[in-house]
Structures are given as C-alpha cells and as structure tokens.
C-alpha cells in the first residue's frame, strides 16, 4: 500500500526523452522552491516596513500571492515526477499486474486529457489578458499576463511530465503507479 511516500521517484532509465523531461521538471521544481523562499522574504520585509518603519506596504501582499500561485503551478511537474500528488491506490494495489498496467494507461491518458484542456484554456485566458492589457485594480497595477503566465507554463510542463510517465509505463521503464510488484 503506497499512495504518498512509499512509491519512489519516477524512473527515466536511459531514454533521452524521459531524461530530458525529468531535467526540465527538476528545474521547474527549483524555480518553485525559489518562489516560495522569495514569498517568505517579501512577507518578512512587509512586516518590517509596517511594524518597525510604520511605512506603507502597497505591493507586497499582491506580489506574495502571485508568487505562491506561480510556485504551485510551476511546481506541478516536479511534484508529479516525485510522485508527490496523493492518490488512492487501493484498487491498483489489489489488481493483477496486467490489469494494473491497463488501469495505469487509462488514468494517465485521462490525466493527460484534463491537463491538456487546462493548458488550452489557460493559454487562451493568458492571451486574453495580454491582448486587452489587463492590470490588477491596485495602486501597484500589475500587468496581469505576468502572473497568468504561470497557467500555461505550469500545465504545459505538467503535460510533458505526464506524457513522459505514460511513455515510461508503456516502454516498461517504470512500473504502473510506481508500485512494486506484489
């Protein structure tokens, strides 16, 4: 019984495509972690400005929100690679290897489909904001295409990692659901 922490990192083997995707996802993970650290730093700076200097804090709240959103979306492929997205693997565990293999194909294909939809409409939404020159309705007035960019980027990279996972299962580089054979 796995689900969260007992399954290992996705295997890439010697397949160059899988290795390239793994590398991209890892870089995305670094970016995600860096954005979380930046959010910590900016929040502390905001508290300092307000509490110690009694100054105005106009842009910090918004910047931190967008950083955490971007960290989440851009971090998706890396967490997928680490198999960090929780699932209920009661059924896959109880299935014989062949059925488990086909179930993995189905769930991965469905995941690819939904992430593809999110990527398509996420890109469209980003493009809409870019096209119309939308800004946030604050004094800072961020051009909204900048934070919205994390939608197509995050889902695009997640799509790539999911395709790699599917390829890995089909080519038997990785086991279905990352589960050890029973």
């Amino acid at each position: 019984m796995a689900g969260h922490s007992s399954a290992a990192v996705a295997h890439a083997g010697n397949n160059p495509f899988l290795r390239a995707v793994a590398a991209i996802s890892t870089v995305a993970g670094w970016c995600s972690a860096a954005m979380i650290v930046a959010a910590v730093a900016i929040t502390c700076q905001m508290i300092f400005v307000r509490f110690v200097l009694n100054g105005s804090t106009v842009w910090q709240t918004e910047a931190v929100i967008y950083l955490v959103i971007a960290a989440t979306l851009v971090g998706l492929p890396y967490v997928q690679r680490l198999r960090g997205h929780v699932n209920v693997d009661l059924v896959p565990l109880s299935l014989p290897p062949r059925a488990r293999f086909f179930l993995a194909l189905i769930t991965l294909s469905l995941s690819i489909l939904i992430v593809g939809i999110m990527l398509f409409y996420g890109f469209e939404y980003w493009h809409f904001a870019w096209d119309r020159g939308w800004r946030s309705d604050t004094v800072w007035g961020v051009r909204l295409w900048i934070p919205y960019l994390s939608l197509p980027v995050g889902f695009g990279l997640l799509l790539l990692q999911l395709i790699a996972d599917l390829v890995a299962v089909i080519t038997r580089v990785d086991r279905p659901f990352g589960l050890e054979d029973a």
Partner: protein
Amino acid sequence: TELRLSHQWSTSDVRHKVAEIVANEVAAADVDLEIKIFPSKSLFKPREQYKPLSRGQLDMTVFPLSYAGGQQPAYNLTLMPGLVKNHDHAARLNESPFMGKIEEIMAGDDVMVLVHGYLAGGFVGKDKCITAPEHVKGQQTRAAGKAFEQMLAGAGASIASMASSEIYNAMQTGVLTAANTSSSSFVSYRIYEQVKCYTPASDFALWFMYQPLLMNKSAYDGLNDAQKAALQAGAAKAEAFYLEEAKKQDAASADIFAENGVEIAQMSQEEFDAWRALAQETSYKAFIEQTPGGQELLDMALSVQ
C-alpha cells in the same frame, strides 16, 4: 430562458434584495424568463465576476464597477474621493452624460447596466476620530479602493492592504489603527467592537462606490420584447428601492455604532474641501495620468451639479 445572477453579499444585504426584486418582477410577468441568483460568492469570487460577465459565461451580476478598474481604467472614476457629494447627487450623476460615457465603455465589453446605484461609506479610528486629512498621518490604514489608498498616502497615512474580512482581527491586535470601507461592511464585520470613533457618511461624505446590477448585452439582446420589457420594469422598481435603502443605510450604521458605545464624528465643509484638494493632487492626478481621455471624463463627472 434561465439567467444566472451572481453577487458577493449575504441574502440579508440590500444588494441581494435589489437582485431579488428584479427576479421576482420578471417571474411575476410570466414571460418564460427565470433569474437564478447565486448569492454570497457561491459561484464567483467578488473581483472575478466581470470577466465571465463580459465573455457571456455569466448573465448578470451586482458588482462594484471599480473592481474592474484594471481592465477599464475609466471605471476607477466610480470610486473616486469627493466626486459624489450625497445620494441625490449620485442619482443625478447616474442620468448624466458622464454615465453615458461609462456605459459606452461597458458596451465595448458586451456589458450593460440594468439598475444604477451608489452606496456610501466612512472612516473608523481605533484611537481617535478621523474627519480631516491631518488625522490619518502616521496611522496604519486599510483603504477600500485604489484612489483612496493614493489620497490617504498623500495625507501621510501608512497603507496596509488586506481583505475587508481581515480588518476586525487586524484592528484587534493593533496591526491596523484606521480603516475606510462601506457602511454595510463596517456593520457586517462588527468593526464597532474594535474602534473608538466612527465617521459615517452624512451631509459630507468622501466614499461613494458605484455598484450597479449589470447584464451581459448579448444575453439581453437575445431576449424577446416581452422579456426585455419585464426586465426593464423590474429594474426600474429595483432602482427606486436601491436609492431609498442606500440613504437609510448610513444612518442605520451610525446608530449601530452609537449603540455599541462608539463615538460618532461628523465631517465639516472645510474638512471635506481639504480632502478634495488633497485628492486632486493625488488620486485625480494619478487617474488622469493612467487613463486615456481621463481628463475629459473627470471634467464630465465634475460638471454634474
């Protein structure tokens, strides 16, 4: 036909009742039209209603128009300090060429107004009364709206941005010492438990926010004549109700604060003029810089007597 209306307020709020009047009138007219109301942001978050409205994914909303100021900078004029003097002035503004110009901009986003309406608000101070610009100097202040942040910063206040739902706790722990928002928010968040003094909107008030009932224009155009007529009849009735209730709310909020032992302060003519002079150098100036055709729009608004 079924129309979906979304708004952010509870079912006891005046803005829900405005939506309800329109929905009930339309239902009573029996023209095969039903308005389904999604209150309390049960469908969309408050600031995220304009985009689906303009793209036809939502049919109607009761919406503070300045929330969409990032998409149409002209809308920022609908929450500008000192632009509206009182509720009757607001009603005249709704009929003016200025509002015609704003509605023209809305039409470009496929949006139209069914019910006009303004609501007012005031200031609270944790330790002292806020009536004049010099009172906010050095205070940690939460302001409702970009133009107010600019004006208050110009008066020497420190601006802290946070959701209105966080005002209560921030006041309690002392993170905030002053705040400005609508009369109804002050009451619904029970801010009277945390402050010493309240300056409600009365003879002179700075904070007026335009919060109309909007509809997607294509959705409206797709209705038949009987349906349009029923909708307009309901809207007219709702608009009259909205104006009456808006006037009552300011006094009612002052009563509630007074009942809870909060001091009630009044802004004088001189103080109002001082704020407005300050706004001209801060928020008005920034608005003109950031909005194409901003000066012309502002002049149109200011010319309404």
